[in-house]
């Protein structure tokens, strides 16, 4: 019988590759390794322990914490018992947590440490369904004497006893489970309103895992780094789904702070990161190289130039001259190889990115140094995979072709993308209305994204369908499209554009403190704070040049030419998820920003050259404060089609 649940996959892995590493964790200085057999033993014990504490079929178990083997095992143990794990973002506030726990009807929670326990204790009164909490790290827990608290080792002790008393229990429970059972609740942090609980079945996750493993030829000897939140569908699919199906090793970093060092140590063979991370890495590469000695910088620039010319073609096995190949080989030894090494990407065979558009420069940079980077397009509701770029058909501005088994179409009226596959979710938990809105009766799912399929059969995403608007001059206004173009410049951290129903387009920009700061240092411009740096006329000038370049790009496209940016402002602070301006996955919360920065937006449109702003912010330690500033507004000239012709 083919395995149709993760606990069954675990059993079969423990059988077929019992001594191979299943999961590692950097702990106490070394990579503590657990084989598939050990993993299974742990899961069995925990499952027995949970059963002994009263967990049974249908219960919901919250999982809160960083990526840790015990949390992964607890998820599988819960699934083995037929209970439903509900992973929650570890950095979510008490309120968010309370909502999710309450909405999902969580009765049990397995959490990482004291910090999470404290958070749960705070909301325990309101989340009335929560009856028991298990913590993994006993540090600092000595003086907690609540009887609904127990450590994972206590659970395991109880599990040993339970197992001795009921030897066949685990096997029976696992075999009772089947593919149609609900595997997990994943709460999506929507841009508006409360998060929705996406219900995925084992069939959903396993079909997509199997599909992707086969499509991408993922082997059992891969190493991945599990550093993205466990509550995110991707981590579930990569670190559990694909790992269990293909049998490869998942590595958990020592802590959030050491992720980069751990990445370099592990040197994964298979790496996923959102564009933002690749962007940050590239920025830091650029900044660090600026401090290098002159000959080194020359060498770097020289070979990077060469890589830009031929690197991608060599990667795609196109024909390249022998001389260029030799030069590229030299570059591999002198620059690309060491560079990949310092980034921890020496062994990597596949690099994926998704979630947002990636800048073409960034994309080409990674591909030109020989990393097989590809984009994919996915959603929690689809169990990740909708489209993916096949090898040798990789473009910076598409998200690839529909994956095998996924049907794809674009609504001709709204331009909204729809798909249908085995991975399509069952429903939104306790939200039939939303389910109906999103999923048609015949299984098509509305993505909410506007896009089109290009001549190569690749899907191109423009923007959120509901965000695409029209300017008063009738040109199409796709804010995210503009914002992405802006964000591809190293100095620009975040951008928000306005224009729907207005006469012209404007932009609100927050600068990248690292990149601009480095630039300022090189130009001997002193600054004490983000605010001071962002207010410098020289910085405005630099950003203005960037925007003019975007305008020139837009002028190229008749449909968008009218949407060129006319005015912009540099914000005095970074857009911040803590302040609710971004989602936890760092997407712009447009509506919220419209309200919060109303005065700025008014200033952008009433022609004033300065605007006063006052916003409430939350500091790192949780205190609230008001940050106020006077910030300048600058005009940008648009490129006309005529100018464009002249130039070319």
């Amino acid at each position: 019988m083919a395995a149709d649940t993760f606990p069954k996959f675990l059993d079969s892995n423990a059988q077929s590759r019992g001594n191979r590493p299943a999961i590692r964790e950097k702990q106490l200085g070394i990579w503590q390794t657990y084989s598939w057999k050990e993993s299974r033993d742990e899961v069995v014990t925990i499952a027995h322990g949970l059963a002994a504490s009263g967990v049974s079929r249908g219960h919901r178990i919250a999982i809160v914490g960083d990526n840790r083997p015990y949390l992964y095992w607890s998820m599988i143990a819960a699934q083995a018992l037929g209970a439903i794990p509900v992973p929650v973002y570890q950095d979510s506030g008490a309120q968010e947590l309370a909502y999710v726990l309450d909405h999902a009807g969580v009765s049990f929670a397995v959490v990482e440490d004291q910090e999470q326990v404290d958070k749960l204790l705070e909301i325990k009164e309101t989340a009335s369904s929560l009856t028991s909490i298990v913590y993994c790290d006993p540090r600092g827990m000595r003086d907690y004497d609540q009887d609904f608290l127990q450590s994972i080792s206590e659970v395991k002790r109880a599990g040993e006893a339970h197992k001795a008393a009921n030897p066949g229990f685990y096997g029976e429970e696992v075999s009772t489970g089947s593919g149609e059972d609900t595997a997990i609740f994943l709460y999506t942090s929507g841009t508006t309103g409360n998060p929705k609980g996406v219900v995925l079945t084992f069939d959903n996750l396993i079909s997509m895992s199997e599909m992707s493993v086969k499509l991408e030829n993922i082997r059992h000897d891969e190493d991945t780094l599990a550093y993205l939140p466990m509550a995110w569908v991707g981590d579930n699919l990569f670190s559990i789904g694909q790992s269990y199906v293909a049998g490869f090793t998942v590595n958990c970093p020592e802590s959030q702070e050491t992720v980069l060092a751990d990445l370099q140590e592990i040197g994964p063979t298979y790496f996923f990161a959102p564009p933002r991370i690749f962007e940050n890495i590239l920025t830091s590469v650029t900044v660090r190289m600026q401090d290098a000695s002159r000959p080194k910088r020359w060498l770097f620039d020289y070979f990077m130039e060469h890589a830009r010319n031929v690197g991608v073609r060599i990667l795609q096995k196109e024909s390249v001259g022998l001389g260029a190949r030799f030069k590229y080989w030299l570059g591999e030894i002198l620059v690309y190889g060491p560079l990949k090494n310092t980034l921890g990407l020496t062994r990597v065979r596949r690099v994926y990115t998704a979630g947002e558009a990636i800048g073409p420069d960034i994309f080409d940079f990674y591909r030109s140094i020989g990393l097989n980077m590809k984009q994919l397009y996915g959603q929690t509701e689809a169990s990740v995979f909708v489209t993916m770029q096949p090898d040798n058909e990789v473009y910076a501005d598409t998200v690839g072709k529909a994956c095998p088994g996924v049907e794809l179409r674009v609504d001709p009226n709204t331009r909204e993308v729809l798909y249908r596959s085995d991975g399509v979710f069952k429903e939104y938990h306790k939200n039939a209305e939303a389910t109906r809105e999103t999923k048609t009766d015949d299984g098509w799912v509305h993505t909410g994204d506007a896009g089109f399929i290009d001549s190569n059969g690749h899907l191109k995403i423009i923007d959120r369908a509901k965000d695409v608007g029209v300017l008063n001059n009738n040109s199409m206004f796709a804010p995210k499209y503009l914002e992405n173009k802006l964000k591809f410049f190293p100095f620009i951290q975040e951008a928000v554009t306005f224009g729907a129903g207005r006469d012209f387009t404007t932009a609100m920009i927050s600068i990248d403190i690292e990149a601009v700061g480095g630039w300022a240092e090189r130009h001997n411009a002193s600054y004490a704070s983000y605010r001071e740096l962002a207010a410098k006329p020289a910085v405005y000038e630099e950003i203005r040049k960037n925007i003019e370049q975007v305008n020139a790009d837009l002028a190229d496209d008749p449909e968008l030419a009218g949407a060129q940016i006319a005015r912009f402002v540099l914000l005095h602070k970074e857009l911040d998820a803590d302040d609710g301006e971004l989602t936890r996955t760092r997407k712009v919360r447009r509506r919220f920003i419209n309200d919060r920065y109303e005065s700025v937006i008014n200033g952008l449109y009433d022609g004033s050259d300065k605007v006063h702003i006052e916003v409430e912010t939350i500091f790192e330690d949780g205190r609230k404060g008001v940050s106020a500033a006077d910030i300048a507004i600058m005009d940008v000239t648009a490129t006309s089609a005529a100018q464009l012709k002249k130039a070319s």
Partner: protein
Amino acid sequence: MFYREAGQFYTTYAKDQGIFQLKQDKYGLWGLLFFAFLVVPIGLYLLVQGGVMAGTTKDYLYNSILLLLLVNCMAAMGLNILTGYCGQISLGTAAFMGVGAFTAYKFSTGMNYRVQKEDNAGELVSTLVPILPQIDNPIALILLAGAVTAIVGVLFGLPSLRIKGFYLAVATLAAQFFLVWCFSRVEWLYDYTSSSTIQIPLLKVLSFIETGTITFGMPDGSTKAVSVSGFLVAGSETLKVPDGAKTIVSASGFILTDFSKALSSPDASRAVTGETFRIYPVPETKYIFSLAIVVVFAFIMKNLVRGRIGRAWMAIRDMDIAAQLIGIRPLATKLLAFAVSSFFCGVAGAMLLIFYLGALEGAEAFNINESFSILFMVIIGGLGSITGSFLGAAFITLTPIILINVQPAISDVFQDKALVEHIQFMVFGALIILFLIMEPLGLSRLWQIAKEKLRQWPFPY
């Protein structure tokens, strides 16, 4: 640049505590060993065979440079243990080396003592009486040399509990002067020779040396011949062509026979009964042996300094009071450093006698300048670093050799031998000062920086 660290991670402490954290370092070292053990001897051999290099040049390379370098590496490691790792300055290194050399000599000659008797004519006749069997195994000699030196080192290390810093350094001069005095005044040490010179006898390993006469058939009948074959390591011996022998056969490998020395005719086939010839090891044998010893002791040193003993030494070095308060016994720890350091120095001294010089005069070979020169190796190489010991030894050993070899150029200008020698000294002294000013932490620090740069490449940090 050459480092590809990504993916090198450790899942057990045993591996994490390995000598090499990075594979590239490990491969680098294996490569270096391969080069030193195989490429150098075979390469030089082929160069000579191919007529590219003169045989004498090869022998000069071995006998005057490589062997000296290896001995100095050994001594520098020894001093680095004491000074670099345990923080006790010693100015008596050469004397400890001397103890090693004399120990090796005494054991190799059977610990002779002199018995004087009046003969019938009333003349005082002295005979040397061995009290132990002669040891002809170089490894055994070297270990014995180390052990005896370790004991002497501990004796002279005893004051280190009470005396610190430069006071201790000066106190170690007591060892230097006292021991060197012994080397030229205690006749027993040099077997009562008038020149106070010691000479190492023939040493061999695995005892498959076969000297003597054999009889074997020749087309024209049976002829007596000498067969010399085996595995000589050090020293040399003069043998007599046995009675009736007409042919000398130099059979196998690791021996050189010098017929020309004693025979009336260099043609071996016309050897004449009663004449002598000399056998001695090929320089390659001495080189390989010395190299192997240095490599083994470097390994031992690395193991000691990365373990509990090394940590105790370094604790005493860095902050002796704090070290005591965490339970380190200062005297025992320092004495152990003296013992191990002296062991290494003793081995170096024995190597100096056995492999490099063959014969030496104690007071001259182990004088105070030798001690300083080893201290220079350690300081210039870098305190507390094994790599540094090697680099420093190379620097101090090779600089004068390079200066000597550019001497012809200078002599053309100055025409005065003494003057040229003085200039050499001045350049050497100035180089040392310059070096201390430019990189007081030594060559190992430069090496470390270079390595760090390579690891971070192409980034500057």
